[in-house]
C-alpha cells in the first residue's frame, strides 16, 4: 500500500527534514539510506553579501524527491501564506507544510492561525500538509477544511520526547479521512515504530536523525522502524493479557 498525499503517491512513509546535519556529506548519505521521498526545507533570505555556501537542495537530484517547504518562522496566517507563495514561486513544488508557531519556548503551534493559514492556502491551490498539536477536534476541523494531510506533533519540535499522548493520536487516526503524519518530537526508532503501530500513515522527523551520534546509521534505523511499525499495524497485534499464557503445550510433559 502506497502513501497518497494530494495527487501524488509515495512508497516511503518516512518524511525527512534537512536541517542541522553535521556536514553535507553526512546529510547526503543519511537522505540516501533513509529512502525518504519527501524532504522538508525552510524558506530564508540568501546570504548574498557573504561568500556563497554550498546549498543542499541545489545538489539534490530533484527528479527523485518531492520538496515539502515549511512556513517555519511565520507567526501568523498572513506570514505563512507569504512564505508559501515564495516557496511555490521557485517552480519546484506545490506542497506546503503549514507551520505557525505560537510559543517560542515550547514551539507549539498556534491552533487558530494554523487553521486560518491552512484555509487560505487551500484557496490558493496548494497541496496543504498541516503541522498541528495533537488536538483531536482541531485535526477534524483541518480535514473538514480539505487539507491533504494532518500532521500532529508527538511532542515539542526537537525535544526527542517521543509520543506523549498516544491515546489522542489514536483518536485522531481513528477519525481520519486524510493521511495522518506524526511530525515533531520523535527521539528514537521506537517512537517512529510506535507511531506507525498506532496506525499513522507516516512519520516526519529531522533532529532525531540529524542530531544522532551517527546520523547515517540512525537514518537507516528510522527507515526500518517506520517499515516495521507499519507492517506490525497491518499484521494486527495480539491483545494484551494480564497474566502469562504458555506458548508450549501443557500436555505430554517428559518428566513423570
Amino acid at each position, binding site marked *: 500500500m502506497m502513501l497518497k498525499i494530494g495527487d501524488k503517491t509515495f512508497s516511503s512513509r518516512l518524511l525527512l527534514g534537512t536541517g542541522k546535519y553535521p556536514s553535507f556529506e553526512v546529510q547526503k548519505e543519511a537522505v540516501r539510506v533513509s529512502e525518504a521521498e519527501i524532504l522538508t526545507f525552510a524558506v530564508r533570505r*540568501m546570504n548574498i553579501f557573504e561568500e556563497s555556501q554550498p546549498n543542499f537542495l541545489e545538489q539534490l537530484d530533484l527528479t527523485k524527491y518531492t520538496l515539502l*517547504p515549511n512556513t517555519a518562522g511565520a507567526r501568523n496566517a498572513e506570514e505563512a501564506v507569504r512564505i508559501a507563495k515564495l516557496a511555490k514561486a521557485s517552480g519546484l513544488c506545490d506542497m506546503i507544510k503549514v507551520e505557525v508557531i505560537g510559543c517560542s519556548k515550547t514551539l507549539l503551534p498556534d491552533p487558530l492561525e494554523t487553521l486560518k493559514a491552512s484555509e487560505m492556502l487551500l484557496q490558493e491551490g496548494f497541496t496543504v500538509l498541516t503541522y498541528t498539536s495533537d488536538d483531536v477536534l482541531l485535526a477534524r476541523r483541518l480535514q473538514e477544511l480539505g487539507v491533504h494531510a494532518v500532521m500532529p506533533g508527538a511532542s515539542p519540535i*526537537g525535544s526527542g520526547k517521543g509520543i506523549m499522548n498516544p491515546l489522542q493520536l489514536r483518536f485522531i487516526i481513528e477519525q481520519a479521512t486524510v493521511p495522518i503524519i506524526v511530525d515533531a518530537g520523535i527521539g528514537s526508532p521506537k517512537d517512529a515504530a510506535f507511531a506507525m503501530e498506532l496506525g499513522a500513515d507516516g512519520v516526519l522527523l529531522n533532529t532525531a536523525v540529524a542530531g544522532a551520534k551517527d546520523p547515517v546509521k540512525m537514518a537507516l534505523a528510522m527507515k526500518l522502524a517506520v517499515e516495521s511499525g507499519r507492517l506490525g499495524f497491518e499484521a494486527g497485534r495480539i491483545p494484551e493479557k494480564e497474566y502469562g499464557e504458555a506458548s508450549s503445550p501443557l500436555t505430554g510433559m517428559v518428566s513423570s
Partner: protein
Amino acid sequence: MNVRLNGKSISLPAEIDTVAELIRHYELENRIVIVEIDKNIIEKTLYAETELKEGSEIEMIHFVGGG
C-alpha cells in the same frame, strides 16, 4: 540607485536597473532564487523587463535546511 536588499541598505552600480541584472551582479544565474520586490513576487520570465526603483525593498530568497 539606493535600495534595500535582504534588509540591508545598499547602493547599486548605475548599470544595474533590472532584476536580471541584479541576479547577474551577484552571480546567482545558476542558483535557485526567488525574488520579491515590495512584497510582490517577480515571475522568473519577467526578470529581464522588471525594473528596479529607488528605495525598492528587494528580497532574494532560497531554500535552506529545515524540518
